[in-house]
């Protein structure tokens, strides 16, 4: 106001001053923590920091060491398997459940509640429950054996080659409810007339879903995929609770590698390099999506 009186035009800094003051926490978070923190970590990933961060640059040394570490390779392989399967299965199971729920069924609320409640639980709780269910001495394996199939084998958490699938089962139990909800919202957004037109044309239901409805739900699918994908890279608690990375290093994941090197092995440089690789992975997923969603939007419409 005073700026206005003096100069005849509003002072740029004082304009919306209250709004700027109110936005200080947001600006600090965005610039200092998110931007600054990320740049800091990336810069220090090129140093040989051990117990404390030090600015002595060693080029790509940490990255060479990272990609030579068997434990990191196992982590990446696990992430790839876990990621690909959890994307496919979440989408398929989520969509099928949503399609079933969309058939004007009775007790819809009850079913939705049942499918979604695991999502309210933490990964730690999920991991511990499934650790118990998959326990070979007491869990599913022993129950099936006691029913007569004495050679039945199902102990994923104790078999290195398939342990990551044990983690996957728990993750799907926890997360598919959310996917179902998103898909159901997408299905409800589809015009009734589409269904009527398909019925008039005599197209079978599964074909209508596959060739008409799913293509129409493309935005929902893409959003869901991005949500699942950004969760996959962060997966940590579940593995800690269910297997602690074992047996041996068979169920290690990148997020756990980062934590262990930063806070337990006191090898910060490795931790920073590994976390930078995580950042790159996320960028590969998110940038094309952001481009499609925001950049290409103008051309599309």
């Amino acid at each position: 106001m005073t700026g206005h009186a003096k100069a005849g035009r509003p002072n740029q800094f004082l304009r919306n001053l209250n709004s700027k003051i109110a936005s200080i926490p947001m600006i600090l978070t965005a610039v200092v923590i998110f931007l600054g923190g990320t740049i800091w970590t990336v810069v220090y990933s090129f140093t040989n920091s051990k117990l404390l961060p030090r600015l002595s640059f060693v080029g790509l040394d940490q990255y060479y060491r990272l990609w030579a570490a068997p434990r990191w390779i196992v982590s990446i392989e696990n992430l790839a398997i876990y990621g690909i399967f959890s994307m496919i299965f979440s989408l398929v199971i989520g969509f099928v459940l949503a399609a079933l729920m969309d058939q004007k069924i009775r007790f819809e609320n009850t079913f939705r509640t049942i499918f979604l409640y695991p999502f309210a639980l933490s990964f730690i709780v999920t991991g511990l429950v499934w650790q118990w269910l998959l326990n070979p001495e007491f869990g599913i394996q022993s129950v099936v054996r006691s029913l007569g199939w004495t050679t039945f084998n199902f102990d994923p958490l104790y078999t290195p080659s398939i342990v990551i699938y044990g983690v996957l089962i728990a993750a799907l139990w926890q997360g598919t409810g959310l996917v179902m909800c998103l898909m159901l919202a997408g299905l409800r957004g589809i015009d009734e007339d589409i269904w009527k037109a398909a019925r008039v044309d005599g197209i079978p239901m599964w074909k209508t879903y596959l060739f008409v409805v799913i293509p129409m739900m493309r935005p929902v699918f893409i959003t869901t995929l991005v949500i699942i994908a950004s969760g996959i890279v962060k997966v940590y608690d579940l593995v800690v609770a269910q297997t602690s990375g074992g047996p041996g290093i068979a169920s290690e994941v990148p997020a756990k590698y980062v934590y262990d090197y930063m806070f337990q092995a006191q090898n910060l440089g490795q931790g920073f390099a590994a976390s930078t690789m995580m950042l790159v992975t996320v960028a590969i997923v998110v940038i094309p999506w952001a481009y499609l969603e925001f950049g290409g939007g103008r051309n599309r419409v």
Partner: protein
Amino acid sequence: MSDTITLKNANGSGAAVIDKTLSEPHGAKPRRVISGRNIMLYGTLFVAATYYLLPLYVMVVTSLKGMPEIRLGNIFAPPLEITFEPWVKAWATACTGLNCDGLSRGFWNSVRITVPSTIFSIAVASVNGYALANWRFKGADFFFAILIIGAFIPYQVMIYPIVIVLRDIGIYGTLTGLILVHCIFGMPILTLLFRNYFASLPVELFKAARIDGAGFWQIFLRIMLPMSLPIFVVAMILQITGIWNDFLFGVVFTRPEYYPMTVQLNNIVNSVQGVKEYNVNMAATILTGLVPLVVYFVSGRLFVRGIAAGAVKG
């Protein structure tokens, strides 16, 4: 369905209504209840529902059994002799490291973390969202874009710099530090939530208030806040469940005496020494899951809205 409704509405002239509904065709063609399609449909749903419910059932059943019974029977069998001892032990005497005061300590820590984090982060984010929606200043979009992109960056990338910042201001390892961290990481999604909500309110309201001479804070407190109860509830659900379920930040930013419940639970169950008491473990697991479950069941549809809005954060 429709018959009973018409009957209720018609009150006195019930007979006439029945007559009408019986004589004239109305409503959808009645579908056979037992058809192949329905058997498939409900069959699949029931099988799926069983898969989702089974772990909860096993948790409850296991937590009510004594150890001898667990060693003998299978995990799906209901308890022959119900005992609440595992629950008592999980709450009050189970050991983590050197402490043997059970989950109660973690529970109160979690309460002391969740309550202020939720209140503080929502207070800050709602003002932020309001500023972004109604008082846009130059450069606001730029900062907001960084904030939203930040929601996708893996936490692991930012953890260590935050440790340093917290250490420098002297709150590393304390509850205050952890509360601040939760506020920081809740910021993107909450700000987005509030910005979109305030932007959806009619602009005329805002303009009228300005003409009447109301300023930034007055409009917020007197006009925006009273209209935004639903979005505050959604944000609360999102924050309470998210913060209660957090594990990583709890481990990284606090000392053992301040560990939240999730961390303590993991330490109790996955401790290497001693005999594994599965019943105590399961009771502890249920206890930890209880708060988010109650929030989920009480809030119903609002929970769905909350997670749909906040899925980006998880």
